[in-house]
């Protein structure tokens, strides 16, 4: 168990909290590319209400929700050629927060020069809009490989989950859950439904290891029937600190990005790249899709791998009460992650840059990931393109074609 105080410290993300201060040192996806349009929309990140827009000149802006005049919401506003105009009295702001216009004030007034809206830096990369809510100067936006490859197809799934982001991150250092949640429970549902079990995910873990490294925590596993010569052990794949899981196999590389909306809600982004040997044919669009949580009867969907994960995260509670948990040796990855958060919170409190802060401009940050995952790239791709959120992708059939993997017997 963890004490109530330590659990608070681990899970509170608002301004002024130790975790909130740590998380504010990173760039966060705040929206997918299609959400930033001439129509301003409300977004919420790290417990702060925000308004996102794209003005007539194409500049994307992110302002605090409340207008500095008399505090109407700025999503009640119209985008102009430059900036966003509050819908209430017409004050207009640019993306840096400067007040450009106060129509009701005397023509010779300099009042507007003394007013600014709270504005946060944003950058677009790889189909996502990233925001930085921390102290300036902002670090570089990390150009992780999947965001910058120019010969890959991409699509982006997303959903709002009613739970704290830490319990989602903990799942990424919990390898044993794969053989039980997906291997046993998932296959139990398939049995009940009259279909055969999924291969691969039921394999037992013989050995797991975790190692803190420059990108976060590197995970390795040996599954039954495999050895330390296999890539699951030799290469492994990372939890990218503080907010992502990298998972995939040759040609199919993905991020699961866990964005804290506030203490009790997480925006989950499934970011996929498809890049067969030799690269994918050119494609400029990045389709975006929503991942449903419930079926038509209102029951949580759990007939696929990602659905099973989601339900395991959500059912721990809005904020898992870790004073009532019972950790064992198989939870050492989870413990290591919590300790890493604690250590990095302390680093920030001492005025240092936390892990995965990039201050130098760079082209690309390459992350390690197995090519042959769970023994076989093809088997893993067959599984993942059908049993992950990709099943909701509008380009699913094109992806099957792109890889040309045979339809598996179990599908």
């Amino acid at each position, binding site marked *: *168990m*963890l*004490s109530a*105080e*330590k659990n608070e*410290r681990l899970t509170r993300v608002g301004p002024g909290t*130790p975790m909130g201060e740590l998380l504010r040192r990173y760039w966060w996806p705040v929206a997918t590319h299609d959400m930033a349009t001439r129509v301003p929309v409300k977004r919420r990140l790290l417990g702060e209400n925000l308004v996102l827009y794209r003005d007539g000149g194409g500049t994307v802006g992110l302002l605090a929700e409340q207008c500095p005049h008399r505090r109407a919401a700025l999503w009640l506003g119209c985008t102009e050629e430059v900036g966003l105009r509050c819908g209430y009295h017409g004050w207009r702001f640019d993306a840096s927060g400067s007040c450009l216009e106060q129509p009701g004030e005397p023509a010779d007034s300099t009042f507007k020069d003394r007013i600014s809206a709270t504005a946060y830096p944003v950058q677009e990369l790889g189909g996502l809009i990233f925001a930085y809510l921390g102290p300036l100067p902002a670090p570089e936006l990390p150009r992780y490989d999947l965001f910058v490859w120019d010969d890959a197809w991409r699509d982006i799934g997303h959903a709002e989950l009613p739970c704290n982001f830490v319990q989602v991150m903990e799942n990424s250092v919990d390898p044993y859950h794969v053989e039980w949640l997906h291997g046993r429970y998932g296959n139990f549902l398939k049995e009940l439904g009259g279909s055969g079990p999924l291969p691969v995910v039921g394999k037992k873990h013989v050995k797991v290891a975790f190692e803190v490294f420059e990108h976060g925590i590197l995970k390795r596993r040996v599954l039954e029937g495999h050895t330390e010569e296999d890539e699951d052990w030799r290469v492994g794949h990372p939890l990218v600190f503080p907010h992502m899981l990298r998972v995939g196999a040759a040609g199919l590389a993905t991020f699961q990005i866990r964005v804290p909306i506030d203490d009790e809600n997480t925006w989950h982004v499934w970011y996929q790249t498809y890049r067969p040997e030799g690269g994918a044919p050119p494609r400029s669009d990045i389709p975006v899709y929503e991942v449903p949580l419930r079926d038509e009867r209102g029951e949580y969907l759990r007939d696929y791998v990602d659905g099973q994960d989601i339900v395991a995260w959500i059912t721990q509670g809005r904020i898992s009460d870790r004073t009532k948990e*019972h*950790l*064992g*040796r198989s*939870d*050492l990855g989870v*413990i290591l992650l*919590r*300790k890493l958060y*604690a*250590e990095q*919170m*302390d680093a920030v*409190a001492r005025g240092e840059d936390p892990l995965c802060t990039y201050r130098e401009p760079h082209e690309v940050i390459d992350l390690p990931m197995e090519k042959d995952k769970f023994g076989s790239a093809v088997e893993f791709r067959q599984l993942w393109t059908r049993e992950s959120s990709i099943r909701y992708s509008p380009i699913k059939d094109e992806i099957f074609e792109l890889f040309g993997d045979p339809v598996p017997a179990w599908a």
Partner: protein
Amino acid sequence: MIGFCPGCGTALGEASFVQEFWSGTDRHFLCWCASCRLMCTVVIGALVGTEPEH
């Protein structure tokens, strides 16, 4: 719970980390001290009888 760092004796306060877990019959406390940065595990094998019911 372990209140003091077994390495430097400083109170394991706010910034430090203490996590209980179980291994066989032993109760373990992984401790990370924010003062001396020691990470260690205190094993309370002989005191299993004091474990509360749960």
